[in-house]
């Protein structure tokens, strides 16, 4: 994995294909938690952490268990068996990924509560919300079944890290904007989410400017 590839993954996930404003993933926490800077940064860190872990685990699950001819299928059913040829992708991807993510979140929560209580107090409440965050499931799918080319384990983990950082970046930008919106005279029917959506639209417009960097690699 050379530096150029790492940079490419970083810029792609932070700006060009930002998870929130270009790929529309993780909008519920984005709208729900971005009204305060501290909440935004807590949520951002928690999501980055879980996305990194989830990318790692789901890539291993994908490469060693689910794909046709994987290590698991070869050892259990034998190299020539029908199930080894077909693989388990169609049947088990959704179920296994969501279970892995849910148990991972639970595990991280228990681990932090037991060993790093300060960190748990800072991001514990956000962890519970992350299971149903589509950004985590989305990065797992984009790393494996829907990847344009095979990323490899390092690539998958890097994509997880930078996608999470991209999420944090947009959360923080939005929290800054929304703290100022508090002082503005917004029509009542626009208060809260609708005006936040309009601001996000303008932010997405700005992020479209990064589209020219797509052919960077």
């Amino acid at each position, binding site marked *: 994995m050379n530096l150029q590839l790492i940079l490419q993954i970083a810029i792609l996930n932070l700006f060009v294909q930002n998870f929130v404003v270009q790929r529309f993933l993780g909008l519920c926490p984005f709208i729900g938690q971005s009204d305060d800077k501290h909440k935004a940064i807590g949520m951002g860190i928690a999501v980055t952490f879980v996305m990194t872990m989830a990318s790692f685990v789901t890539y291993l699950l994908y490469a060693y268990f689910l794909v046709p001819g994987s290590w698991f299928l070869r050892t259990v059913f034998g190299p020539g068996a029908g199930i080894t040829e077909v693989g388990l992708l*169609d049947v088990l991807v959704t179920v296994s990924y969501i279970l892995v993510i849910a148990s991972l979140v639970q595990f991280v929560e228990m681990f932090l509560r037991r060993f790093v209580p300060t960190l748990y107090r800072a991001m514990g409440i956000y962890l519970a919300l992350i299971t149903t965050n589509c950004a985590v*499931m989305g990065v797992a799918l*984009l790393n494996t079944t829907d990847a344009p080319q095979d990323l490899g384990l390092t690539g998958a983990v890097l994509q997880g890290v930078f996608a999470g950082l991209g999420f944090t970046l947009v959360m923080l930008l939005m929290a800054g904007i929304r703290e100022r919106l508090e002082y503005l005279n917004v029509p009542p029917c626009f208060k809260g989410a*609708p005006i936040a959506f309009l601001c996000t*639209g303008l932010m*997405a417009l700005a992020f479209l400017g990064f589209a020219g960097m797509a052919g960077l690699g």
Partner: protein
Amino acid sequence: MPSYREEFTKGIFKNNGIFVLMLGLCPALAVTTSVTNAFAMGMAASVVLICSNVIVSALRGVIPKAVRIPCFIVVIATFVTMVDMVMKGFFYEQSRALAIFIPLIVVNCIILGRAEAFGYKNTVFRSFLDGAGTGLGFALALILIGGIREVLGAGTLLGYPIWLDAYGRTVFQPMTGLVLAPGAFIVVGLLMAGFRAIGRHRRHPQMDQVTWE
């Protein structure tokens, strides 16, 4: 106990998943570039919603309270897998267009929310009506967003160009931005505000007087 009719209709306008409860927003923005995509997504999510609501309701005496959320997730994931396979088998092009958003139905907050708030506490038939109503509300919202974005952004409806006069000349220059990401946010934001204005007017007509201070 609300009437059966009420169970069905409350999810369409009063508790519309997208515009009022603001759940399940990701597919509402991501796949609504055309009416066809919006319709396909709405149907897929509705089928999952109805089936999971019915099954959760039928099993509500069996599922222990402490592990109910993982149980709901497994039920939902099973139906999502079925819908995914049916879409891949019979509507391959459509399933390519929706890409990761079909498997992502599993993390759609509306579905888990209805299973938890309604299916787990009510009879099978009521849960079916609730699922059907909520699903219809979701699908209609998607089609509304998709319609606006396709007509104004691409200048087509269901893939056919519509802004043509009798001589086949284009009379309206489509706003391409609406099909891109920013347009999705702006259309949804405006529709959400519109829904709120209407809802406020219906419920508390007097509140309209305290607008601009």
